[in-house]
């Protein structure tokens, strides 16, 4: 960033209100850029460089030929979507309840939704072990009925859903509050049933919020390590998800771990691009996104 040349004298008073001296701008901008480059950009590029260091053929082999890695990819593609769907249903219901009704325990519900953000994922995993594990409260009953939760896919789903619980609800509550209940009331007074109102009026109004929440939720669900690590038992080829596989490979075959890590990173990049597209859609004045609706309402 080069400092701007001196402005014509007449403009100086007006501009000096809005612009700091060039060296201040220069220091601020370059320190921000420096941080981003070293903390984000360099490691990001490095992952791909390392992954492709032995050529694309080897890279491909690491991903496809290794049955355990294949299984990890498959498992992640099962666990993450199910957790996302669970949180989508929960998030819409919770946001609806919180934005539309005043009831006892409403504040508690809002606080509880945030809990997974503040609790350590490892502790979250332990909570499930205590509940469903062999020594846990429900363990004996589950064993008697031959239901496996811990060290099995259901446990992975539960842990992932727990950690990603806030995303959809958090995204939708402000959107629904900003839109207000009037359109829904209008639909009701025009004769719509609850479901008709929900599908014809509510969902179209919050669809961008839903999509945004789902994308963030999915990104987090695919990348979840801590909680999943605790409940998985790390059985190779059975309960290893992609992040767990990355960590395990790193111990004995770093170049393979880079390959798997690059897949996860790629998923993250896709998520960010989708998010950016959505954001521009919800911000642009030509769309009917939630933010623009708020602006119209003012």
């Amino acid at each position, binding site marked *: 960033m080069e400092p701007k040349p001196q402005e014509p004298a007449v403009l100086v008073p007006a501009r000096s209100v809005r612009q700091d001296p060039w060296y201040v701008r220069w220091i601020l901008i370059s320190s921000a850029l420096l941080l981003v480059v070293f903390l984000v950009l360099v490691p990001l590029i490095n992952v791909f460089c390392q992954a492709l260091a032995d050529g694309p053929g080897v890279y491909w082999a690491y991903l496809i030929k290794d049955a355990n890695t294949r299984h990890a990819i498959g498992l992640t593609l099962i666990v993450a979507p199910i957790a996302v769907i669970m949180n989508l249903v929960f998030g819409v219901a919770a946001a609806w309840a919180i934005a539309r009704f005043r009831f006892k325990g409403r504040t508690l519900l809002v606080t509880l939704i945030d809990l997974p953000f503040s609790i350590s994922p490892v502790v979250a995993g332990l909570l499930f072990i205590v509940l469903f594990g062999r020594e846990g409260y429900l363990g004996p009953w589950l064993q008697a009925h031959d239901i496996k939760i811990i060290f099995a896919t259901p446990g992975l789903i539960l842990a992932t859903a727990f950690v990603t619980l806030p995303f959809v609800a958090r995204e939708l509550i402000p959107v629904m509050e900003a839109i207000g209940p009037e*359109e829904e009331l*209008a*639909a*009701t*007074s025009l*004769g719509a*049933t609850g479901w008709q109102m929900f599908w014809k009026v509510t969902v*179209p109004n919050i669809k961008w919020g839903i999509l945004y929440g789902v994308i963030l939720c999915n990104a987090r669900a695919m990348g979840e390590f801590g909680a999943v690590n605790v409940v998985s038992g790390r059985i190779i080829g059975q309960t290893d998800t992609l992040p767990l596989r990355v960590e395990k490979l790193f111990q004995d075959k770093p170049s393979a771990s880079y390959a798997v890590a690059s897949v996860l990173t790629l998923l993250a990049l896709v998520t960010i691009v989708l998010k950016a597209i959505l954001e521009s859609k919800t911000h642009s004045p030509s769309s009917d996104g939630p933010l623009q609706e708020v602006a119209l309402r003012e």
Partner: protein
Amino acid sequence: MSITVRNVCKRFGKYVALDRVSLDVPSGCLLALLGPSGSGKTTLLRIIAGLEIADSGNVLYLEEDITRTSARDRNVGFVFQHYALFKHMTVFENIAFALRIRGWPNDKVSQRVHELLSLIRLEGLERRYPSQLSGGQRQRVALARSLAAQPRVLLLDEPFGALDAKVRQELRQWLRRLHDDIGVTSVFVTHDQEEAFEVADKVVVMNRGRIEQTGTPHEVFEHPANAFVMDFLGNVNVFHGRVENGRAVLGKMELAWPDYPHNESSPAAVYVRPHELDIDLAPDGVASIQARVMHINPAGSVARVQLEAVDSGNLIQVDLSPSRYKELDLQNGALVYVAPRRIRVFMPEDYSI
């Protein structure tokens, strides 16, 4: 379809929004619920619509008790203050909403929507989205949407509140004509007395969750039941004094008030509208009060003169006809005499509310 409200009460926490309100809306009537904000008028409207549930009391359409019927099944048209149009639907689909819900076939929907579009004079705009319409157009679409399924009653919540003065004026007259054409029993909420008087057959003045007075615009304006109604319906000058022996005594001014023939004097407030006061250059016995001209605003259909009473220092507002104003040739600071042509007297129990 007549509407009857019987002894409806509604509280929000400790706040009493409606206190044993009873109301009759005759079939085909256009009724205005008029009152300041917080008077409970919108709550009453929403209870009639079923969007709010009364704590006690009943609501009847014709003879049918619909107190427990949901808003969905009441078949009312409700127009929201901020339109509440479906933003993601075109004008056509907005108006068609109630018809699609009722499973009308496409050709009948289309026919009915076009009928309504011509009624609201928005033909050709059916493909627009609400964000592409002006405020007045949106309000008309909201009205058409509420009328689509031929509701039993039409309810409007501050229908013109969010519009600018000129559009509001046009829409008022249009709503009145529309009501005369379709004749559906209608109730609308407003805080604007001019709007209520211009549009409504019947006006209900509300205050603090109660009905203060019900009547035609003329009845309510000319014969206000109490000081609140008098005060709320337009500007008014208030003189505090007493009544005795058929007279109202206000400082040096004494006016005939035969409604109070008793000997013992009682404190009273005398209310006089600005247009019911006259200005004279000479005193008229005890029937006028000396005052000094403070400010004159001759712009508009009347000349507004502000005066200060010489004895009490109270401010007095007088509206003069332009011809009278010309005749008097008033100047700021001039000493003149103000004489009420018509007064209304309220005893403490009337005005202490």
